[in-house]
């Protein structure tokens, strides 16, 4: 029988993968994709506990998390465009000035 523990374990693996990706990669685009991976892990957790408790609050919260993730993706990709215009690169450690 699959219960919430299995889903929490899978979500833990996905979250740690995303965390490693955020810290490990230099490419700004890949770092943002790893962030989306972490958002997905959170959603998986919310859905699992929503099912376990038979409560819709978890699913509603997951909708809000998806909305915030979409907003974060739009802002992050705008930042990438600005960084490419300024420095002509997507490497994160090249972004070392406060204003250009």
């Amino acid at each position: 029988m699959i219960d919430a523990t299995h889903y929490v374990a899978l979500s833990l693996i996905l979250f740690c993968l995303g965390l490693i990706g955020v810290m490990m990669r230099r490419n700004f685009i890949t770092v943002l994709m790893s962030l989306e991976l972490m958002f997905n892990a959170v959603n998986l957790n919310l859905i699992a506990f929503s099912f376990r408790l038979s409560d819709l609050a978890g699913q509603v919260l997951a909708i809000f998390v998806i909305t915030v993730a979409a907003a974060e993706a739009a802002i992050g990709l705008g930042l990438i465009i600005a960084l490419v215009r300024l420095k002509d690169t997507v490497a994160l450690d090249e972004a070392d000035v406060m204003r250009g």
Partner: protein
Amino acid sequence: MDFLVVNFAEILFYCLAVLTVAGGIGVLVFKSPVHGALSLLFCFVMVAALFLLRHAEFLAAVQVLVYGGGIMILFLFVIMLVNIKGLAPEQAYLSRLAPLAIVGGVLLGVLIAFGLVFGTLASGHGDGTGLRMVDGVEIGNTEAIGAVLYTKYLVPFEVVSVVLLVAMIGAIVFGRRTAGLEAGEGGVSHD
């Protein structure tokens, strides 16, 4: 054959879980951002299937539409737009702290896994009937979410629209050609 039928839910979950993790690992290890984005898309679809298994039908559809459709197209669009020629792939791959990052991530995972193994937080089973019911009447999952979202969670729902508006304005400001306060063509003049 009986084994397959009896344990169908478990086998389905483990297959989907392995594919999800494989997609996630693909995001980390592919050097090309396009390959990473496609791997992430695969991961998103597998997570949507996992949502279906937990009776979150509406969220599975939203996952495919918003993540697989919207966010993924945005990523691919930006990858095509920035067209990174000046940066060799092996040069742009890993940061200097990569070994430390892997050790830290695995350590955090092991720590939380200890809590998961020795804790009792997630034990027990649910049946998910509450995910289809409103006021004791059994309707669909989408209708139930709508009924809850527009009554009990109306204020958070409206606040989230402000978040989206702020994000939209922020993205436009970042994307402007003169992304600063100084006057120029396209910028705001201050004199």
